[in-house]
């Protein structure tokens, strides 16, 4: 799971940004305030328990070099009476079937309605007959009003242990984690309520039993867990719901549409790199400096076309001043930029050499975050599309194309010394630019009964340089055992 893959990095980031670990309050002690704390928890639990779902998708995975299927465990929370439920993208993506166990111990199939890898959220809909009894669903609380120290509970199925509750407090309400290209649009709620694999997609609730976040990342049992703030989750869910309503079911899962400008931002006070930039003096209370530093403008992007340059300050977007003093403010600015109307000119104000300039920019629709997969079963490897966001290194070296996602061992591709992250340029005489090209070439060669020798020359690019590799598929590894 992507969540756990990032753990090591997260830990490092958390250390740097001053995350601290607190002990969980022993709740059986007599409350000092005189409030019946146990009762509060009971109430909260009662409210949200019925909406808690054990999500068991059967997912496809291509990373091992062949398409494999496995049932994985995750959690989810019902957010509407007609059966929409939220979980993580990393739980529901590539699911060929999703089974959900509801609060009444009933197992129901669900359909994936929408996937948003950029916030790691997925919207599912339970497959229930129309006119069935309305479901109990969880309410959202305003996650912006959360405060550090507030009690919260994480609900879900850690390691598949269904309907588990862990208790803790909000350790930080605005945790910024500097991922390269992922999770650009949200901050994180940090909690010491235990979040383990299987908790993914489950709700983080307050003492009123309202959802304040979606549990997504954990750092082992270290008392450091992260949840997507409820407001972000609710917003993404609504967008997907709306989009899904307008989209034919056959085209589900829908994707959240975002505008792309090609701007990359750096906070004015970047404590991670000890880099401090003067903003534009603000006029409000405290006269906080305004603006955010533009650190990079992607080549060929709308911002590049608009001649915005790295080092400019972005001051006004959509008529609103931008406050980018701290990293914690960056996701909000990115959301604002992502919400600009696509293909419609808009005016930004940037500051260059202390001079404000109005810049006309035409945002475009942000491309696909993650590319499609394809299995070359007989050849024992899988490929994937390169996208700028999921594979920045490959994209930088090659641009769009197809790369080897996984090589099965043992297998023909492995014998040919093909490796994951090799970019495919040619299969035989078929030039490869898209997955469709790979599919076409693969099928042509594999199904060619006239082929005397089962050999094909595959031209790859590795580390930026081309190499020919000879794939010989005389041996059928899948027939062994």
């Amino acid at each position, binding site marked *: 799971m992507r969540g756990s893959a990032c753990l090591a990095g997260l830990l490092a980031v958390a250390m740097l940004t001053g995350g601290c670990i607190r002990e969980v309050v022993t709740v059986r002690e007599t409350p000092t305030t005189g409030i019946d704390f146990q009762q509060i928890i009971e109430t909260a639990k009662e409210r949200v328990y019925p909406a808690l779902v054990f999500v068991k998708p059967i997912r496809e995975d291509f990373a091992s070099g062949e398409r494999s299927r496995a049932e994985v465990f995750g959690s989810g929370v019902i957010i509407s009476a007609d059966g929409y439920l939220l979980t993580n993208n990393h739980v529901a993506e590539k699911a060929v079937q999703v089974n959900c166990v509801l609060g009444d111990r009933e197992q129901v199939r669900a359909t994936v309605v929408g996937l948003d890898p950029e916030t790691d959220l997925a919207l599912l809909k339970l497959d229930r007959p129309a006119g069935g009894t309305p479901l109990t669903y969880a309410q959202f609380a305003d996650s912006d009003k959360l405060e550090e120290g507030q009690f919260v509970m994480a609900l879900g199925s850690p390691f598949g242990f269904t309907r588990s509750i862990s208790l803790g407090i909000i350790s930080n309400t605005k945790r910024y984690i500097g991922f390269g290209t992922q999770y650009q649009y949200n901050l994180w709620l940090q909690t010491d309520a235990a979040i383990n694999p299987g908790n993914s997609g489950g709700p983080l609730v307050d003492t009123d039993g309202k959802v304040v976040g979606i549990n997504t990342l954990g750092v082992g049992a270290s008392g450091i867990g992260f949840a997507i703030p409820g407001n972000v989750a609710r917003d993404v869910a609504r967008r997907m719901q709306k989009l899904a309503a307008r989209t034919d079911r056959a085209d589900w899962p829908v994707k959240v549409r975002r505008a792309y400008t090609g701007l*990359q931002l750096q906070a004015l006070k970047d404590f991670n790199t000890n880099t401090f930039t003067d903003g534009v003096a603000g006029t409000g209370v405290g006269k906080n400096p305004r603006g955010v530093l533009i650190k990079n403008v992607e080549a060929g992007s709308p911002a590049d076309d608009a001649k915005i340059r790295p080092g400019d300050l972005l001051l006004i977007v959509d008529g609103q001043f931008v406050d980018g003093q701290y990293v914690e403010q960056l996701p909000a600015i990115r959301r604002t930029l992502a919400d600009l109307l696509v293909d419609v000119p808009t005016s930004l104000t940037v500051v260059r050499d202390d001079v404000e300039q109005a810049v006309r920019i035409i945002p475009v629709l942000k491309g696909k975050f993650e590319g499609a997969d394809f299995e070359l079963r007989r050849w024992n490897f899988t490929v994937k599309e390169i996208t700028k966001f999921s594979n*920045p290194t490959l994209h930088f070296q090659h641009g769009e194309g197809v790369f080897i996602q996984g090589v099965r061992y043992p297998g023909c591709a492995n014998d040919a010394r093909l490796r994951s992250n090799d970019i495919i340029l040619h299969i035989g005489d078929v030039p490869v630019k898209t997955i469709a090209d790979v599919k076409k070439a693969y099928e042509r060669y594999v199904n060619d009964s006239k082929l005397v020798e089962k050999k094909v020359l595959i031209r790859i690019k590795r580390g930026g340089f081309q190499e020919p590799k*000879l794939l010989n598929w005389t041996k059928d590894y899948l027939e062994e055992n």
Partner: protein
Amino acid sequence: MAATTTVPFGRLAVTMLCGLALLAAGAAGQDASDTSEPAIPERLRKAAAASFVTVHFTFQKDPSPDSDDAAPDSYAPSRQRMYQQYIDLKMTMDVVGVVIAPGEIMIADRQINPRCVKAVEVRTLAGKAMPATLGELMRRCDAVTVKVARAHAGKLTPMTFAPRAELSMATDLLRVGLDKVEDKWRLIHGTLKPTPVLRTDKKPWLLFGRGFGESHGALRYLSPTTPAGMGGPGIIADEDGNPIGVTCAGGLDSREFYGCWVGATVLNAPRVALAGLPEYKRKLRGTLLKAVHEVTVQFRQGGGGGGGDEFGASSRFGSRGPSGLAGREVTVFGVAVSDKRIFIPKGLDRKVAAQLDAMYVKFSAGRRARAKFLGAYKDFGGMLIELTSGTLPVAVPAAPKLPDRHEPFWIASARKRYAAKHVDLRRARLSGRRRGFANGYHWRANATMKSGDLLFDYRGRLFGVVLNQRIEDEEQRRVADPRAGSYSYGRSDSQRIFLLSELQPRLASPDKHFDTKIVVKSRLAARRRSWLGVEFVTLSPDVAEQMKVAKPTKDGSVGLLINAVYPNSPAAAIGLREGDILLRVAVGGKTDPIELKAGRGRYVSRYDSYPRFGGNDSGEGPAERTWKARENFLTTLLDAIGVGTKITVTSYRPAGEGKGAEQTAEVTVTMAPPDISAARRWKNRKIGLSVRDLTYEVRQALTLKPSAPGVVLVKTEPGSPASIARIWPNEIITHADGKPLSGAWDLHKAIAAAKAANAGKVRLAVLRLGKSRFADLKIDAYNPDDDEGLDEDYE
């Protein structure tokens, strides 16, 4: 038992004595089964039985404090092992001797260390035993004498030699030797027929017998497993059975050229007491050491960083290669050839020489003089250096002529002993000439020698040096051959004696004889390399077949598949492009082109493995280096060929169904622009960074235009301002305070200027994976004194 073959010598047939008839010597024990005794004159048999003795040596460890048994660079340990074997096995070394004078026995010179001899015993064939001592060194025969005490002298019968009659084609000579058959010493006997060697205007030179040549089995050290009697002196007699001489070579030749001497020579040979030799050697060593000098050679620090590991070509300074020698000091020994110049009998390969930093002649502890490298010779592994100030006490004395054959001379091997220079002196004799390089006949000696050994005649005058013969284009061919590792410059078979007569003209006008490629270079210039301007991969048979290039690439064994062509390179100029296969390179007007077969493993790019992904995307940690190390098979080969040489490049451009075509183009080998390992740099440890100019291969890998600004950050120091600013190795710093950087010097300037203006920081624009960001570099700690690398240049 005698096999007869006819060789084309007119009417003559040479009898090859493959097995010698055994003859029971009366006193050595009769053998009843010996019925068919060949004819041997009774006179000879008697003389032999009386004058042949066996000499038995009992060894001990060298008890002297001067023993060099442990010295790794001396020959003593290997000899000591031989003695030790005898000691361990409680055996004596038994050799054959001939009594030549009262109480005096001649044995082959086996260069026995007198200090290791515990006891010597002489036994007659009649079984009388008597103690003996080592006697004298015979200066005209490869022999020494053993002496028995006067009291025992009477028990021995000296051989009486008849004067040698005129030898002619009609003469047959007889030979009697002593050999051990199982546990008995037996006389062996044979007839020696003459073979004439015809010489214009001169009398034919007659060789009697066989076994002539330079092989001096007689003079090898004998181990306990060596057959007894081997090579021991034999007696040559005329047809009537009158002994006329002694042979260590199996026969007799009329010029005493090979290891054989007539009686007069044996008896009248000048002699030196063996007991006096150590003192003689000590004195000689003292004289020689005045002309032999210890030279310290220092090599430049390597300085890693973004350049990657340098591959070391094997060098004659051990096998460590230039990178292994980086920063090290090596001691070599040379001999003064004038009051300023020292000849060092050791080669220095091109890459090692380029890294040379300083040389000192060490006179004594604490006293040394700087010297400069003048050049290394193209014909042999030797170099000449010159004192930059002061003079050398004496030049080495030159021998007026080569020592006579069989005349002992000295092999001087210089080394360090007891923390001072020292020469090991070993005795040897010239053994003959063998055909070698360029059909020349080169002298050989009857002792093991290593290159660098100096050869002095008996009186201590230099007559030759053992050197490695250098072969033209050797480096080039070594690189071109993928199995090159198996042989190198230092091959023992390419070492030979260079006579002073050969060396003298080269010492007198060295410039004409120096290898112009072997020069000392600046640190940066040493890292520059030649280029064609391509990156490549090798092919395999399968791939070649599938690409339909099996024929031109000889089943993929030849050919470098180009996968990148650098702009403005020679390759680009001759129209090579990605997908072409480089097949051959012909140097100059030579007809045999070098086939391009990059050895797998050694020169295939370090980037055969794909870059590790992961940390790279998050922007934390060192960035992945995607540019290739420019030291590869092709650049190394071109370096060996040399800048300015015209080469003809043959390439193959594949086209559909094997219809591709070969094309040739003439290119002059040029120096590549500096690559990252040779780029100008600036390093400041306090600021904590080391940057280098953005070089062509880095630009290519990062798709940066030639005009794009930037420097490559090759290293950051932990905890330094650079690492606190979270800038990482292999990232590109493009701007400092908004100003584009055109090189390492620029960044230094920007920081120095900011420091001068009392700014606490410099704003850097940093590029990683094509994405920029800003980082503030604190420069409070900047101090120009810590700057490194700024003074370096390509000159």
